């Protein structure tokens, strides 16, 4: 299995607070990797670092290395906009733009070029199909995205991320604000996405990690304690701290 992202002794500080301690992980391509751990363990910080969203936080310092396809993502010549196009992000709360469904999806492609109307139509349809939303919205593409249900809005955000043809999707608790039905739709969708994309997901829902992910990494107070096959982590964790966390003995 190809490793699409590898980190080496990666440290991250918010001011004097060390949020990530010497993280070494290899994210496999076209698999789903789940990041789990108690609040404040650094998993979301780590996720945001993968497409340099933390650049925007004042006082952030880093050391060590993160490579995407073997290229240092912090290198001077790295085009951050392009990096974020290749590594897209879906957030905890659906955040559609206050515009039509169509324009939400077309936003990224327009930003990165000037596609023709027919091309855009194709991208919109392909992205919405990719996010399993097309059939529900194809007759109201010009309507406001804000009129969609929470679950539909989240799938719209996934479609928006797909519209610029990323390679990696970062998802920060993408279903925590959704009802069980919408959650299952998103989980089914992730199983589909896995064929063409690499997914890294932060989740507080252990059962979700078990259901959907191939690999699981357990974070605790800035450290990555254990990383392995999801089944191994949840059936036979090696580290006592992992066992204690997943069985609810702390955290």
């Amino acid at each position, binding site marked *: 299995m190809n490793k699409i992202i590898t980190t080496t002794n990666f440290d991250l500080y918010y001011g004097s607070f060390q949020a990530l301690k010497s993280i070494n992980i290899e994210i496999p391509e076209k698999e789903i990797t789940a990041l789990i751990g108690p609040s404040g363990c650094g998993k979301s910080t780590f996720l945001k670092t993968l497409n340099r969203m933390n650049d925007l936080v004042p006082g952030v310092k880093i050391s060590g290395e993160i490579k995407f396809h073997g290229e240092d993502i912090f290198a001077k010549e790295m085009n951050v906009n392009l990096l974020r196009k290749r590594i897209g992000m879906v957030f905890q709360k659906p955040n559609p733009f206050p515009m039509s469904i169509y324009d939400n999806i077309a936003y990224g492609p327009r930003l990165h070029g000037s596609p023709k109307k027919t091309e855009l139509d194709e991208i919109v349809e392909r992205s919405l199909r990719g996010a399993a939303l097309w059939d529900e919205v194809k007759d109201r593409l010009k309507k406001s995205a804000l009129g969609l249900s929470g679950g539909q809005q989240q799938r719209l955000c996934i479609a928006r991320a797909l519209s610029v043809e990323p390679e990696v999707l970062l998802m920060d608790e993408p279903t925590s604000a959704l009802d069980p039905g919408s959650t299952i739709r998103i989980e089914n969708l992730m199983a589909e996405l896995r064929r063409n994309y690499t997914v890294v997901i932060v989740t507080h829902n252990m059962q979700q990690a078990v259901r959907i992910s191939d690999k699981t990494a357990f974070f605790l107070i800035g450290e990555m304690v254990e990383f392995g096959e999801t089944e191994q982590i949840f*059936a036979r964790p090696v580290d006592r701290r992992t066992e204690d966390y997943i069985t609810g003995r702390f955290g």
Partner: protein
Amino acid sequence: MRNRFDEQLESLNNSLIRMGALCESAIANATKALLEGDRTLAGRAIEADSEIDQAEREVESLCLKLLLQQQPVARDLRQISSALKMITDMERIGDQASDISEMVMSVELDPAAHAIHIGDMARATIGMVTDSIDAYVRRDLALARRVIEADDVVDNLFLTVKSELLAGLKINPAEGEAPLDLLMIAKYYERIGDHATNIAEWVEFSITGVHKGELLG
């Protein structure tokens, strides 16, 4: 925040220990009935069977409740799934103790039983059952593995008993039902040994995550 879950696991453990104790006493009674011709004890072993069945249903429903409510992982999942598997073997042990007792009730077997190694066989299997349940209670991996090894002893005793019975039949072919019944009883003990081995293998799994040398889950 685990308090309730820990209490439920404790109660699962207690139910299993109780079911184990019922099985132990059922075989002990059946064996005493066999070797001493005490039909009252045979009757008790037969009555115990329905109590054991009832205990199995209790453990089963507790396990299903825990799976539903707690969605257990890691050692909790192994403990609960092992319990679910173990009770099937315990229930069979109860059936076989009852089967032995029914044969003891219908034919007088004790004089013939003393001529062969069936008493040794019974003691060896009772030891396996007791140890397999102790291994679960104490999470004692070494003890579980000793039970698994002891199965060979019981299997060999079965062959000994079988040849003893065969030799007896050659000398006195008109001995009647007793040798056939004793052979079946020996087979029941041999099966009880297998069930104790299965229990010990699930104990090993619940501690290590490895079942009969293979990773499960």
